[in-house]
């Protein structure tokens, strides 16, 4: 019974060219276009100030390591070094801080006085990184890079326990390009559209056209129908994500920095969440037309505002409040965190809780309002 239902839905889906296009091909076309646009990687040309107050040996080491970012190691194409166009300047805390304020600098690294002394006497110390938060792409990159440098300097001095810390914490690969940033967004987008287009609409169609009614006239239990329906969508969702990640990996060698199992966990959670949202749409929409309208109403704002194409932090404050309510925001955030170690907007716990809450609430409401018959 389950197998037959599942197979039937699979056939129905795989023989539908439109559905195939939107779930599989569309994201791929998307990746290809953006991949080609972004894979060359825009280079950073930001200006960074360094305040070196430490008199000991460690501070200068850190400072010159940071400045060394512009140098491309032998045997590497300078075009691949995204930092090669950056500018560094040194000065006092006061003057550089002022430059950061008025926008002449995009970041400031402060290596405090007495840092070397603290470390050598076995106490911990920290380097402060101040980053202009308006440069959305640069900020996380730079923080990550500085953190890496500090960690490696630290390891050279103190073999055992780490002493040096950075105040803004975040790690990023220095190889991150636009396409790497985009892939998590595309994944999130296709998961959402799976929930909206591939879950809600066929269900509404099945109800309005009377397929559900015909099933009702058989001994087929309703839960069996629902389980096979969800299982089928889950399969499509996983298939979709596998294809996107595989193509991203093969064509553009995109980064997956985090744990793959954690990534799969996040994907499963968000797929289930959007399936639940899809069911909710199917529950409240009476006709296919109204289902369409509701779907688009959900699709568009989320697609453009939830961080798929540009970061949420760049939006005006009032809009950020709205965006915080969108489930997709948390999907994008969670996926970016695990795939490219992007700076968190919300902590993983919050991402988990919010998405789980959406999943549960939508499931409950769907069960409450779902109608099996058209009229």
């Amino acid at each position: 019974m389950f197998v037959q239902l599942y197979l039937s839905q699979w056939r129905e889906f795989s023989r539908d060219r439109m559905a195939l296009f939107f779930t599989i091909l569309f994201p791929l076309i998307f990746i290809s276009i953006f991949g080609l646009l972004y894979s060359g990687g825009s280079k950073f040309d930001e200006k960074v100030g360094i305040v070196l107050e430490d008199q000991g040996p460690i501070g200068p080491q850190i400072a010159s390591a940071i400045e060394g970012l512009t140098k491309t190691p032998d045997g590497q194409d300078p075009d691949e070094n995204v930092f090669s166009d950056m500018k560094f300047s040194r000065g006092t805390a006061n003057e550089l801080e002022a430059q950061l304020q008025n926008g002449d600098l995009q970041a400031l690294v402060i290596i405090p006085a007495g840092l070397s002394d603290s470390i050598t006497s076995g106490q911990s110390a920290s380097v402060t990184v101040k980053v202009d938060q308006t440069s959305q792409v640069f900020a996380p990159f730079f923080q990550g890079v500085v953190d890496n440098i500090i960690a490696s300097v630290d390891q050279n001095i103190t073999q055992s326990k780490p002493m040096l810390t950075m105040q803004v914490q975040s790690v990023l690969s220095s190889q991150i390009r636009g396409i790497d940033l985009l892939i998590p967004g595309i994944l999130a987008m296709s998961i959402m559209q799976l929930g909206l287009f591939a879950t809600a609409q066929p269900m509404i169609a099945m109800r309005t056209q009377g397929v559900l009614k015909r099933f009702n006239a058989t001994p087929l239990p309703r839960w069996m129908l629902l389980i096979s329906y969800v299982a089928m969508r889950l399969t499509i969702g996983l298939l979709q994500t596998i294809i996107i990640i595989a193509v991203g990996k093969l064509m553009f060698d995109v980064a997956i920095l985090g744990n793959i199992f954690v990534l799969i966990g996040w994907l499963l959670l968000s797929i289930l969440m959007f399936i639940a949202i899809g069911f909710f749409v199917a529950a409240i929409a009476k006709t296919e037309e109204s289902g369409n309208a509701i779907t688009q109403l959900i699709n568009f704002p989320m697609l453009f505002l939830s961080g798929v194409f540009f970061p949420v932090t760049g939006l005006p404050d009032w809009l950020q409040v709205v965006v915080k309510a969108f489930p997709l925001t948390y999907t994008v955030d969670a996926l970016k965190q695990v795939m490219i170690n992007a700076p968190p907007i919300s902590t993983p716990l919050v991402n988990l809780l919010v998405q789980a809450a959406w999943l549960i609430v939508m499931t409950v409401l769907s069960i409450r309002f779902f109608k099996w018959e058209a009229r």
Partner: protein
Amino acid sequence: MTAIQVENLVKIYGSLRAVDGISFEVAKGEVFGMLGPNGAGKSTTTEMIEGLRKPDAGNIHVLGHDVLKNIEPIKQRIGIQLQTTSLFQKLTTRELVKLFASFFKNTLPIDEVIGLVNLEEKVNTASKDLSGGQRQRLAVAIALINDPDIIFLDEPTTGLDPQARRSMWDVVSNLQKRGKTVFLTTHYMEEAERLCDRVAVVDHGKIIALGKPQTLIHDNFHETALEFSDDERLPEQLLTSLPAVERVQNEDGITTLYSTGVARTTNALMALVEQQQTELRGFTIRAATLEDVFLKLTGRRIRD
């Protein structure tokens, strides 16, 4: 034993009493028909018996089980063809029959069922590519897949060509030969007369006549019907005063004279036509049918 027992069934939609106090019983092995015009309440009644719609009042028992209380044991033993069946569009005939077969404990072989409705040539055709009549037959095939004791057919021959209709009649006759109970709705009186052991003639949610087709006809008519259309409209009182004419009906430009003496009425009618210098078109003499019963009881034809 009774297969279906319905008592005082009522279904109300807003201010419309779609089914208005219907009662009847269907015996096991019987072919029972509901005959009535569009909107009479046939589908509503059928689907309430099938457990798909909840009645506002009344009792329904199918194979001894109360449909309103416990439909599950019944579902394995009945086969349902809805008036409009919509299925997965891109699945083939065989795939769909197989899918529905998986819902039941006992099933007939897939190919046997497809053969019963003569769809062998279309086993690998997607349901969306079937013609209306073929889709109708597929729906009937699916209704037969669990070898049901009772088969519900809601207008099984609507949209079929004459040949397919006759082969559908064969399907129903064969079901009866195998001891099955068939409950069908139709608005073809010929179909009802031919197939049904008993018919319930319904109109506006009420049964207006119930019994064997021949009994219904004989109870209502000992006359023969003379039917024609005349453009000039012969005056009705002249027609009524023709010899042996019992009654005159005029509906949709077709005049029907119910006569107890065909020869006398015909002769007099021809003389009248001559005298009025008019012409009759489509003059026919026929035995009364269920259509006439309906016409007599409601003043309307079943199909408008």
